[in-house]
């Protein structure tokens, strides 16, 4: 199985979720992260002190899929998450050796 980790802009989550659902992928895990990269942050001033917030809010989507689905899923995510502006984010793909569904002890592709 493959684990697809996508770092995307927060407001793109719904679209990405839907496009994955279209592929029949109805499970994923999402977390709030802060991203640092080319995209520039904003400046905040509180009385005397001014500073730039360069860690920007991003959403990280983790979805584990069967090998054969990986490419399709990746493509769907990239397509849905794209705005063309700096800061759209990344997708990383790696291997997962085993998956288990806690409720049923099912393993492998059946687990996801």
């Amino acid at each position, binding site marked *: 199985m493959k684990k697809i980790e996508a770092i995307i802009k927060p407001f793109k989550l719904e679209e990405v979720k839907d496009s994955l659902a279209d592929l029949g992928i109805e499970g994923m895990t999402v977390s709030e992260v802060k991203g640092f990269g080319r995209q520039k942050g904003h400046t*905040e*001033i*509180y*009385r*005397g*002190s*001014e*500073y730039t917030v360069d860690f920007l809010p991003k959403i990280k989507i983790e979805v584990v899929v069967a090998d054969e689905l990986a490419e399709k899923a990746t493509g769907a995510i990239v397509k849905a998450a794209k705005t063309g502006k700096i800061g759209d984010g990344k997708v990383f793909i790696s291997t997962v050796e085993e998956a288990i569904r806690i409720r049923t002890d099912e393993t492998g592709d059946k687990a996801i």
Partner: protein
Amino acid sequence: AGSPTLEQRIEDLEAYINNVDRPSGDASKIKAPGPGHNAWQMVSTALVLFMTLPGLALFYGGLVRAKNVLSILAMCLGITGLVSFLWWLCGYSLSFGSGNPFIGDLSYAMFKGMTPGGVGAGYWWISDYIWAMFQLTFAIITPALIFGATAERMKFSAVMLFTALWMFVVYFPMAHMVWSTTGFMCGPLNADAGIKAIDFAGGTVVHMTSGWSALILCMILGPRMGFGKVPMPPHSMVLVMVGTGMLYVGWFGFNAGSALGADAIASNAFTTTFLCAAIAGLVWALAEWMLRGKPSVLGFCSGIVAGLVVITPAAGFVTPTSAVIMAFAAGIIPFIAVMYLKKMLGYDDALDTFGVHGVGGTLGAILTGVFADPAVNSVVGPLKEGLLAAQFKAIGLTVVLSVVATAVIAFIVKFTIGLRPSQDAEREGLDTVDHGEEGYILE
């Protein structure tokens, strides 16, 4: 005094409306507190306590990082308890017992000789007890203001010890000198005052003492770890704004309550306070807008508080139009102090107690000398000539007392129980270290 005539009894009743002394004195059939004035004094007292709990606690608490929010709340709560106890024990008596020009005496210790129906200690128609409670609320908020400058890096035990000493050396004497009939700086009430200055609601007693003490204390304490390197933004501007609103509303008790009756002077003080604060907030934010590009919520809040501080000594002495003029000064001069002066000098006045209360209080004391108007308040008349000079003398005395006393007390605390927590403790945050609690547990 035999029993009063019908006319005298009518005069007594009219005296109540006009908030002046009962012509028939002890013989009066209405020696009790006057309901309207006493009601307003109770309301004002409640409002000023509200300024500290929870007003100031939120204003300051929102400005620190989340890991230290409870240390601010505990400071306000601890000072409320400690000062209330001291006030009952001897603080009220040391402040308002006749004593000498510089300090009172112990004649009212533990409220000795005071009665529920007693009036006259504060003013003609308000209960002596309420007068004592009203003044207590001032005695509570003043030290609490100081610890904005030292936020995020002073041990709770040190805060408590410093406060206990500071009340005796700075606050009780200052309250006596400025507001007691025998006080050295009490122009309106003491014909023999050494300095014939005026301070309507505490520009010197409250804001200058706390502001200047804060400056010295935060210098002796040293800056927070990482000051100037790591960002230390307010953890909740929402709390800051809520606290500001409470301070604003409570301040009507602070200033209009200082008229000691629901009379014309109270009405004037209420009005000048309302206008000066609202407009100073706008001015501060506009200054930011022009000089920094954006008007901020913290700018509005800072300006409102600065406006309240500046009008405090003047509220019952100046016209609404003077208050509007003072609002512009209040919105600009503390703004400059906070934005630029602090950076220049490099001290870590964490929540700008000096910038707002020290600078603003001093500014207010000066402008009071400039704008005080006999047409607004008859006590100004006889004092007007040479008033500005007197104000400067009062400022000088207040600054010297605050600075010297604070330095001495700070070093006493430093070399006994110590002022600061360990570096690890400061990094972890004072909430868990000093109080064993967290401000928020949201998951």
